[in-house]
């Protein structure tokens, strides 16, 4: 079946511009995650959505970062007033969590490489 897809695959933007990154999770997966992979910081958790619960935003680095998940499926990560330090690969993952809260493996998308010039 189809895996997690992300778009665009590459994005170059000028400092100060806003960007939107999109993630389409695997159909039926209830949980969706955003991570950031950068040279200096490695892989960092950003935000987590699970069903209709309030998202866990504890990993967002600043208030310039926000994300939403519409209809329990597609998610958009928005970065406002981009800075050069925002340059990274942004990874989306999804997983299926049982009602008992069991953890299942996260399936990752190919990522969006963001370059802020």
């Amino acid at each position, binding site marked *: 079946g189809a895996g997690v897809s992300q778009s665009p695959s590459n994005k170059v933007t000028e400092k100060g511009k806003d960007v939107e990154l999109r993630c389409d999770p695997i159909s039926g997966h209830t949980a969706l*995650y955003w*991570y950031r992979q950068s040279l200096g910081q*490695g*892989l*960092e*958790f950003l935000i*987590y959505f*699970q069903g209709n*619960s309030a998202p*866990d935003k504890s*990993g967002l680095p600043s208030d310039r970062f926000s994300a939403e998940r519409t209809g329990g499926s597609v998610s958009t990560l928005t970065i406002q007033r981009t800075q050069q330090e925002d340059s990274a690969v942004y*990874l989306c*993952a999804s997983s299926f969590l049982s009602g008992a*809260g*069991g*953890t299942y*493996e*996260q*399936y*990752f*998308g*190919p*990522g969006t490489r963001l370059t802020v010039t």
Partner: protein
Amino acid sequence: AQSVTQLDSQVPVFEEAPVELRCNYSSSVSVYLFWYVQYPNQGLQLLLKYLSGSTLVESINGFEAEFNKSQTSFHLRKPSVHISDTAEYFCAVSGFSGGYNKLIFGAGTRLAVHP
């Protein structure tokens, strides 16, 4: 708080030699442990996982990892590596807190297999 330490940033090894990639974690709660692999210019793929049960887990391509609770380790091993195993390997941990979970990753180990 949970954290993951991968002790080696780079591991060079010759083809057909054995390899061990080390991973230690710290957590005050029960954890689930994962190894992910990232081949050059590709996304992250799950290699193997430990959730419960047998402490030795295996992947389909010959890797294995052993959960050692007393040493809080989850080292990844392969008895004979191939050129195609060249990749970056990430150890990750997740645990329960308030009914949700997220992955905490180590810094990664770059495995370079030479002919």
